[in-house]
């Protein structure tokens, strides 16, 4: 079937968004500044994916501005158990997301700004982007002591990290994104980014901890809005475009077809936890039961977020050995996840002798096992 199609719609973002610029496709640098109206980390990460997959960046570049409600974002190849306090996250209902770019773990809340610079592979240049940010900050407050390190961090007063960087390169396009601490909750930040899990051995990318400070602390007039505006202004100047920010709704399928699938994928357990590189746990803990203290030793191998090998060393006969081996057998192949372990343990109890003593000991062991996850 050969049909002549004379319409040449280019999948340029400005056209889809039907922004005031849309009508004409500019042949000069048609770069674009867009800002998300959503504070959902998964939706915003999905927008990055979408632009990376669908937008032609040959004749234009894109700057994407976004902020998230409280979330911990780990790098593509990181281990969430190693990087943050998952128990605390669950308690405080702080989301956990895995982004597609590399690098370390960061804490986002509405006091943190995220900037994503989209270019072609050829024009991928992180230093330039960060220098743009520093230029914007200095234009705003000339006395601000901010500079870019060779690790692509931005430091305030030569001491405090206010921005971290990560990047993703695909076949033809690339993006570089970075954070900027404006007025984030430092207390929550430091508590969630401290992992309580012991005995982990893994080749996952480790994060490099750093002392942080908010720009707000340096100068209270620096709000997120002020900073976003300044950066957009600098970008517009350097790319010879109008200082115009197009708002984008990450839930709108008509503007971003296929975006909801991307958002869903980022939320799946298989992506967030299942993509953790293989790791092992070798740890021991004490259980206090009635008048005695028991030593328990646990060894596990976890691959794709599931328990591959499991070994639990208990004092002899404290629990029926048959039951223990049933537990170990059930755990193998299950997700390394408190919910699943609890359910499995509760189920196993249904099919064994109904004895209060046994139940108490079993529950104690399982609670401690769950603490490892």
């Amino acid at each position, binding site marked *: 079937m050969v*049909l002549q199609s004379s319409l040449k*719609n280019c999948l340029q973002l400005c056209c889809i968004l039907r922004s005031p610029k849309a009508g004409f496709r500019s042949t000069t640098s048609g770069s674009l500044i867009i800002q998300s109206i959503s504070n959902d980390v998964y939706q915003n990460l999905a927008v990055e994916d979408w632009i990376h997959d669908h937008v032609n960046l040959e004749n234009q570049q894109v700057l994407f501005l976004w902020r998230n409600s409280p979330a911990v974002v780990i790098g593509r190849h990181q281990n969430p158990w190693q990087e943050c306090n998952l128990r605390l996250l669950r308690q405080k*209902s702080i989301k956990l997301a895995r982004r597609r770019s590399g690098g370390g773990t960061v804490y986002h809340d509405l006091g943190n700004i995220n900037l994503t610079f989209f270019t072609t592979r050829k024009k991928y240049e992180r230093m330039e982007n960060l220098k743009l940010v520093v230029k914007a900050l200095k234009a705003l407050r000339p006395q601000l002591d901010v500079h870019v390190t060779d690790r692509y961090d931005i430091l305030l007063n030569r001491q405090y990290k206010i921005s971290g960087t990560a990047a993703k390169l695909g*076949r033809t396009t690339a993006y570089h994104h970075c954070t900027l601490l404006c007025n984030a909750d430092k207390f929550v930040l430091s508590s969630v980014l401290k992992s309580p899990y012991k005995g982990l051995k893994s080749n996952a990318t480790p994060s490099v901890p750093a002392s942080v400070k908010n720009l707000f602390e340096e100068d209270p007039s620096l709000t997120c809005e002020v900073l976003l505006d300044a950066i957009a202004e600098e970008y517009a100047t350097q790319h010879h475009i109008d200082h115009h920010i197009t708002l984008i709704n990450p839930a709108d399928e008509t503007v971003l077809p296929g975006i909801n699938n991307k958002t869903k994928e980022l939320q799946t357990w298989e992506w967030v936890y299942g993509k953790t590189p293989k790791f092992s746990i070798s740890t021991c803990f004490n259980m206090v039961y009635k008048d005695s203290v028991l030593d328990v030793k646990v060894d596990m191998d976890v691959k794709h977020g599931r328990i591959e090998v499991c070994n639990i060393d208990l004092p002899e006969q404290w629990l029926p050995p048959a039951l223990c081996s049933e537990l170990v057998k059930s755990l193998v192949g299950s997700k390394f996840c408190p*919910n699943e372990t609890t359910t499995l343990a509760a189920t196993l109890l249904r099919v064994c002798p109904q004895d209060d003593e046994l139940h108490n000991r079993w529950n104690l062991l*399982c609670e401690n096992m769950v603490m490892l996850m």
Partner: protein
Amino acid sequence: VCIHRVRSCSSIRFIKSKYVCVFDKSALKFSHQQRLFRTSAVSCGQIVQFKLSDIGEGITEVTVKEWYIKEGDSVSQFDSICEVQSDKASVTITSRYDGIIRKLHYNLDEIAYVGKPLVDIEIDASKGVAPEEDVVETPPMSHEEHTHQEIKGHKTLATPAVRRLAMENNIKLSEVVGTGKDNRILKEDILNYLAKQTGAILPPSPKAEIIPPLPKSETLPAAPKDKARKIPVPVSRPIVFSGKDKTEPVTGFQKAMVKTMSAALKIPHFGYCDEIDLTQLVQLREELKPLAQIRGVKLSFMPFFIKAASLGLLQYPILNASLDESCQNVTYKASHNIGVAMDTEQGLIVPNVKNVQVLSVFEIASELNRLQSLGSAGQLGTNDLTGGTFTLSNIGTIGGTYTKPVILPPEVAIGALGKIQVLPRFNGKGEVFKAQIMNVSWSADHRIIDGATMARFSNLWKSYLENPASMLLDLK
């Protein structure tokens, strides 16, 4: 030598392939000429070393973090091969060729070097490495620079057939949104794109259409029963179903279900069903809901059902018992730990409310709220999930009337509640009125519970709910 023979054949048409047939012993097995030709090409395909190309920023080495393929897999051009990382940048390396992976040069977490081979791919010699495979218009590109990732154009995944279709219609693949796996562009996507451009009405796609039955006057050649019958359309295409079976191991929640249900199978179940008129209870709940709300608790019907069950169990304690493995002893449980089946994202869980016999309806409601929020957050503890003695399942929130619930060992009885429907019923005066009717289905362990006991318990439970004021008499 093999390759040479293939090359010479490629320029000559099929006629000459007969000569290939004669000389190539392995080809004698196959009768189809064309297949022959390709088979011999594959067996002596060209192995190309796919080198890791420049990452940018002067980076010379990266760490291999994930392989998407393994040796022996076949890949298409643009398929993802692996993920490498360098200094906070994660890079997806995609294939330049269609072919079969023959060798991976690195293991996970090893350092890979730019300019050095990453994988060996055996390519189809018949297809060659022609740059014209790229459908997208390319700006003038120096052809000497065959570095493997610097393909101008866009990250578009599409089979050669789809690419040809796009090319024939002057469509840039970058303009089409792919709906297949990994945003792969399917034939349907091209057709949909075209339809949008030209307003053409295209024949219905083979995916999920309700195909109306043919009018009887049409005569059809004997066709297979359902799917092949369709209204004659200008362009007919064969329906292609490309789904594949998927086998996964049973793990996690499913494993738990398998264990529980296998144990339940050993229990001889009998069922008993009835209908309950909840008209008065509905009214009562309406009155009490705001009071509970003031105290910060959401009041559903379940707390009433649970409390009524507990009152019933006081009269018929055998339903709150447990039979040991050898069926020698029955243990009458003192606590009424009534389980409430909950449907979560991961599957069925049954947390229980402890000691209902000493709790008020409000306290039960409060406890249910707590269990429900923990359940939906996936944070229920072992204590909440163990120790149940009797279970109620409110399947009616999803739908259904009568069901046949399965007893959860070590319990001996379970009740499943259907949905509340508004139905006409006769009152004492013989008048028809609007009644709020709910069905209940009980299952019990016939080894220690007989039908009469179950019936009497159900009647008592029913009377408490049909006339809530009567609960006041027996509340402790």
